[in-house]
């Protein structure tokens, strides 16, 4: 065993899928006890590289050296046995089984062929203690929170005596306190000499926990740097393959910093109240050509406001005007007829129809308009689909590809196109860039900007302050179901939004936008 030199060295890794070159001579070097970030846009090849390491894919070319020895894992089991464990994005454990069983599934301690439950529990407790986690190991996994489940997954990983733990977006389902716990565990692993590969889209987290970063783009490794030597802006620029100066000029998001609205009021909602207690008294107005940011903490009523406007949830009180005329939508169909579209927060369950093609998903809402006698006019459908794939630069092998095979960013583009082909006047976007990698995020943001420029009104719900600050012409802040502030363009800063979310004055007292 060679105790010096890097723990993992992947060199010249290439991998092609039918029609796509996913990796071309990519490399990844991870030192001992190092927390190493892998970053890149969707399609940069980072997950392919990780899957080759963990044995889920076979490489076409290149070498993988672990602890000085060449390795070639054929399956996740082999990788595990070789000291490489993977924690997946969604917790991959079984909910009905106990914590201890989850840690030892497949390698249960036995006595005379039967499970030695006492020993299994004791060892599970010992492993979790090592991570500083206290939990009843006999409870079913599904009964503990996601962060603890994540810890159980890590305990399982280290129980294989892993020298390298791969974490694929481990924080995507954790809240801040839970992320802090996870980071504590990662530091513990590092102190024990275990190396960690940390795949994440979140810059804050990468800077908080990682030592080095490998940046990938278009299937190649473009940089391998210590995080202390690289600024956030530079990191983003390397990922996007952009000139640093250009990124600096245009800001970190894809939004151009300019106001572009007219005075014509498209939508005005006053004192809107929903059926439950989440929406009590909300005011919001959107003009043509304006992007209105809708800010608020989780549970402040942002999504409920959008759904109430859209006619998806009943409105109990308040006024809603479109083009100055009072309206009340009984169903989303009414709202759509009035030129309003809603792109929901949860793409997977409320947006896309995963098994349908890009073509079908894109034209789902348009079908009545391009049908005659109930039969779809294929030629017109094709025109629309081609036009939007081109205009939105949707990356797909063709209109017949299933939408679930697209990346998150491209799925979102298809959803936007679904509304845009109806030629709406107002779009309600609920977290339009959530779960989308940095590059595609910029593209979506630029697209929203462009749409507003062309006269569309946009109400954009976002949890990202940066996005609200750079993207909005005006920001409306909700707290506990009430509008507590309305910030005109000049007053939009992260501080102002945060303080309004936290302690803004009560209903309607926010200042009105002058123009």
């Amino acid at each position, binding site marked *: 065993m060679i105790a010096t030199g890097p723990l993992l060295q992947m060199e010249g890794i290439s991998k092609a899928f039918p029609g796509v070159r996913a990796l071309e001579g990519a490399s990844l070097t991870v030192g001992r006890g190092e927390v190493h970030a892998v970053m890149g846009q969707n399609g940069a090849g980072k997950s392919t590289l990780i899957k080759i390491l963990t044995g889920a894919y076979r490489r076409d070319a290149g070498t993988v050296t672990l602890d000085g020895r060449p390795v070639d894992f054929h399956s996740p089991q082999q990788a595990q046995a070789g000291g490489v464990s993977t924690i997946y994005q969604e917790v*991959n*454990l*079984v909910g009905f089984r106990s914590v201890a*069983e989850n840690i030892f*599934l497949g390698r249960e301690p036995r006595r005379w062929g*039967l499970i030695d439950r006492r020993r299994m529990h004791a060892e599970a407790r010992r492993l979790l203690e090592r991570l500083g986690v206290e939990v009843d190991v006999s409870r079913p996994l*599904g009964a*503990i929170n996601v*962060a603890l489940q994540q810890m159980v997954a890590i305990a399982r990983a280290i129980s294989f005596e892993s020298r390298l733990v791969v974490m694929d977006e481990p924080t995507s389902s954790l809240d801040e306190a839970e992320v802090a716990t996870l980071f504590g565990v990662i530091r513990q692993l590092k102190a024990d000499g275990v190396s960690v590969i940390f795949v994440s889209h979140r810059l804050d987290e990468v800077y908080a926990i990682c030592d080095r970063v490998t940046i990938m783009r278009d299937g190649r490794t473009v940089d391998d740097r210590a995080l202390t030597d690289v600024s956030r802006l530079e990191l983003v620029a390397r990922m996007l393959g952009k000139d640093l100066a250009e990124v600096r000029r245009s800001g970190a998001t894809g939004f151009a910093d300019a106001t572009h609205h007219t005075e014509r009021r498209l939508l005005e909602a006053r004192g809107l109240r929903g059926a439950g207690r989440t929406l009590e008294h909300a005011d919001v107005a959107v003009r043509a050509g304006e992007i209105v940011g809708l800010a608020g903490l989780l549970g402040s009523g942002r999504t409920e406001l959008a759904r109430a406007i859209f006619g998806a949830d009943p409105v109990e009180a308040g006024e809603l005007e479109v083009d100055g005329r009072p309206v009340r939508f009984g169903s989303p169909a009414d709202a759509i007829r009035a030129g309003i579209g809603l792109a929901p927060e949860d793409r997977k369950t409320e947006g896309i129809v995963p098994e349908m093609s890009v073509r079908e998903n894109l034209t789902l809402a348009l079908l009545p308009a391009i049908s005659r006698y109930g039969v779809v006019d294929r030629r017109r459908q094709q025109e629309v689909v081609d036009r939007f794939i081109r205009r939105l630069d949707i990356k797909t092998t063709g209109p017949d590809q299933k939408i679930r095979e697209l990346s998150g960013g491209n799925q979102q583009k298809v959803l936007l196109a679904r509304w845009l082909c109806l030629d709406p006047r107002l779009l309600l976007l609920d977290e339009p860039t959530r779960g989308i990698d940095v590059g595609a995020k910029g593209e979506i943001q630029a697209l929203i900007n462009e749409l507003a420029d062309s006269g569309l009104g946009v109400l954009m719900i976002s949890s990202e302050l940066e996005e609200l600050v750079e993207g909005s012409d005006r920001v409306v802040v909700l707290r506990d179901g009430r509008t507590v502030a309305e910030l005109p363009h000049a007053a939009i800063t992260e501080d102002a939004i945060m303080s309004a979310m936290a302690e803004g004055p009560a209903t309607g007292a926010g200042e009105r936008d002058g123009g």
Partner: protein
Amino acid sequence: MATTSTPARSITRARLASVLQGQGALVALALLVLFGALRYDNFLSSYNVTSFLANNAKFGLIALGMTFVIMTGGIDLSVGAVAALASVVAAMVSEYGLVVGIAVPVLVGAVIGLVNGSLVAWGRLQPFIVTLAMLLAARGLALTVAGNQSVAVDFESGFTALGTTTLLTLAAPIWIFAVAYLLGVLVLGRTPFSRHVLAIGDNEETARLMGLRVERVKLGVYALSGALAGMAGVLLAAQYGAGQPAEGVGWELTAIAAVVVGGTLLTGGLGSVVGTLWGVLLLGLIFNVLNFENGRGVISLSPYWQSIVLGGFLLVVVLLQNRLAARQT
């Protein structure tokens, strides 16, 4: 933390529903026994009890195998037909004695189960379709081999001892029934195999990523189910004195009903062998009580009423569980 408490709650609810299901079957069973004991003179006579258990042993075996199949999230519709085929095979080889008479049909069942399992595990086919096809094939094979009539067993060879021998006053089928369930409880409670079965039923993809040999485990449960159906066929032949190619119609559905009533989730991931035992006994007892009721001569219900009562009972059980589980939110 609304997002994380939801799965936790649904897990708790699922477990609660499962406990209610298992206990529900036991409570209903106890009530029915009490009802029978008070209403009919010979209900608890040793004759009725032993013949009841001996008759239900074959359903018990089939339901036991079905429990493991369903715990993986699968289903085995072929068991009734496999039992019929096995009974014919048992009759045909009965002249070679008891050991061969048991081993060959069980082996036939296991091989059919292996075929089912291979198609499900490696062929990635739907268990419903695979085992439905096997149901048709096994039934056809049984009728063809038997020439569309029952096949008498060799009464000289000692095979019939299986139907007549008693040990400590209990007939051999009852002992087989009891030993099978004891082993079943042990396997479910204490072996890695059963943990893997449940993990696969809970989330197959996850189980695979955890390094479990999903295909092998699936192969195992279908082979087990086939072998137990084969053994049920042996009992059938021994008890009737003949291989019965047309018997066993609908047994698979009775077994599924017993498993579900006993608290095993039809979607897999949670299950109980003891619950299945209560389910089997409960379903059998409904039939037994009907017989007694007819015996009193006041009313006369055709045996088809058993199905109607069964169906109604199954619906009530599932509805109650839903209600009780929903109230826990």
